[in-house]
């Protein structure tokens, strides 16, 4: 820092510099402070409150006397909960799997320096702009046997075509997967495209000089270097899958009976419609445990790798 021109004494200048320095280093903390405080209270504070409620016998309104593991025992004895958990496994697995594979394939194809790349990219990305309610409602009409796809194909002449997954108890969750994949594939594709553009050309040219074919290049160089993108997509898709509530409610309303129930809809139904806040809180805590159990080791291993690599 330069000496001020004349006038001020060295001691006062040092003091002013000290205050300016202090403000400069403290300013980010001051600006982020309120946000952090809000996150602490409204996210972690309320997680703690829900955890407490899951150990009480709350029904219509919250009660705070400790009641042990009563709610968890009732939760694990509940048929509907196990259906919801199984559905979450099916939905999350298929949704994440298909989105990643389809997104990657589309990104690789779009990366081939084709002419209408910008236009095609926009088209694939548009479904992301819709809310899940709109997606759910539109797909409900499309998948409706009497009005939608089945009706159309039958009218085209294929009298015995059936596509009534949405009204079949065993298949309704797969209908939810279809709508979810349609919505989120574009987003994953955009992420992979950005990742692909970031790969160093020099490595690829070197591999081509060594005589590697395109398949080998993609398999051994490009895809492994997209690891961080895979990781981010997994986290984002995973969180969308776990919090899927509006999609299920709009598309099947929980399915014929409760065959397409997910833990999020289970929690809402029990906490707010059936006056069993305690049971709903227990199911919410189980959802949290599942997420924590998967994401935390993943984050730990990824950040450790980054620090080493």
């Amino acid at each position, binding site marked *: 820092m330069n000496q001020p021109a004349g006038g001020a004494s060295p001691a006062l200048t040092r003091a002013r510099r000290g205050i300016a320095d202090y403000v400069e280093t403290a300013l980010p903390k001051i600006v982020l402070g309120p946000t952090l405080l809000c996150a602490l209270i409204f996210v972690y504070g309320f997680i703690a409150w829900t955890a407490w409620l899951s150990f009480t*016998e709350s*029904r219509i309104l919250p009660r705070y006397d400790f009641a042990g593991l009563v*709610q968890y025992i009732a939760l694990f004895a509940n048929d509907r909960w196990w259906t919801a958990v199984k559905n979450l496994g099916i939905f999350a697995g298929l949704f994440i799997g298909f989105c990643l594979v389809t997104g990657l394939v589309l990104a690789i194809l779009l990366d081939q320096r084709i002419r209408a790349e910008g236009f095609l990219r926009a088209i694939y990305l548009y479904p992301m702009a819709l809310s899940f309610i709109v997606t759910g409602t539109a797909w409900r009409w499309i998948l409706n046997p*009497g009005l939608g796809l089945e009706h159309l194909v039958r009218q085209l002449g294929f009298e015995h075509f059936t596509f009534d997954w949405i*009204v079949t108890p065993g298949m309704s969750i797969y209908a939810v997967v279809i709508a979810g994949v349609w919505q989120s594939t574009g987003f994953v594709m955009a992420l992979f495209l950005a990742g692909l553009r970031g790969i160093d050309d020099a490595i690829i040219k070197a591999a081509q000089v060594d005589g590697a074919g395109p398949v080998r290049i993609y398999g051994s160089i490009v895809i492994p270097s997209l690891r961080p993108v895979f990781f981010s997509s997994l986290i984002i898709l995973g969180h969308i899958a776990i919090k899927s509530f509006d999609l299920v409610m709009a598309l*099947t309303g929980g399915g014929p*009976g*409760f065959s397409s129930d997910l833990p999020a809809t289970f929690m809402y139904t029990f906490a707010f*419609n059936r*006056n069993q806040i305690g049971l709903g809180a227990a199911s919410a805590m189980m959802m949290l445990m599942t997420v924590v159990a998967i994401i935390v080791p993943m984050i730990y291993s990824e950040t450790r790798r980054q620090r080493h690599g």
Partner: protein
Amino acid sequence: MKRLLVATALGAVGLASSAPLYAGGEVEVLHWWTSGGEAKSVAELKKELEAKGDTWKDFAVAGGGGETAMTVLKSRVVSGQPPTAAQVKGPQIQDWAAEGVLANLDSTAQAGKWDSLLPPVVSNVMKYKGHYVAVPVNVHRVNWLWANPEVFKKAGAKIPTNWDEFMVAADKIQKAGFIALAHGGQPWQDATLFESVALGVGGAEWYRKAFVDLDPKALNSPTMEKAFTTLRAVQKYIDKDAANRDWNLATAMVINGKAGMQIMGDWAKGEFTAAGKVAGRDYICAPAPGTKGAFTFNIDSFIMFQQKDASKQQAQRDLASAIMDVHFQEVFNLNKGSIPVRMGMNLDKFDQCAKDSAAEFTASSKSGALVPSFAHEMAMPPAPKGAMFDVITAFMNTPSMTPKQAAEKMGAASGKKV
């Protein structure tokens, strides 16, 4: 200077808080009657209240059959600012009263002689530990069979009076190329159908033991198995597009002559009336098979929350007495399609189905065949009701589930009172 400032501030606060004396209090009423006929009925209540000098603050929360309204109500109560009254029915009233937030309406009840105007089955639902905490508005009958006489004539069938006759009539209708039973595959509709089947198969005494007392021995019983067996047989007559169909679309199938019958409460009558159909000529209303003489009731009611303000308490009492008033009961129920809950009223303005309904209401309350509808949250709290809905809807959607398994699950469902 400082003292002057403080004095001015205190004076301003004092002036602001000394509100002018109102002639009456303010009533904030939470409800979800937002459709055409229902909204007109609520406007009637508002007029009556304003005639008594109170102000009505509407708090309508649309949609979901009241689910959104209930969530809003919970958040209001937890924050310590409950509305004056809320539209809550059935054993939920007792759930709320157990939380200690409801007002005692005994003085209004005594002045209005409610005990003599309401059947004991109904007034028990409105009371908590012997004190009135809620006021009933109307009576819907749930165990109705709506039939299209044209379809029946073409099929050569006659209106069934029990479930065996139902199978015969349904067979004939199906053979004639129509859909025998119009139904929507939503959990509450499945339960509405099931409860009429159960009542017809088991009778009012067993129904009360199973669905009101939640006796596991009555629930997991041969009678329950027989009810489920009958339900499985009835399912054959429902068309395969029924999944997630709304109830009014099913009624439309009967109105249009595509289907012969629907088993639904008397709010279906509103659809027939709106389509310009006349009872007895264009459509027939009959008790659901096997339930003649029995009446499954669904009663809307308002609960009153404890208020600290004296004028609000007075307005609350005015609201309660206005609802039980003869004029309001007549106008409201004419608009909504239900019958007055107040017994012994003049019913000249009501149509034939309503008059039949009212006569059965009084008769069944004397004979003991007046039962609350469990599918419409009148017989048990939401927790076991939801669990039983799960069983019924799973049974209807899982062809491999046997009536015995279903009966066992119903027995387990009653104990789910966490």
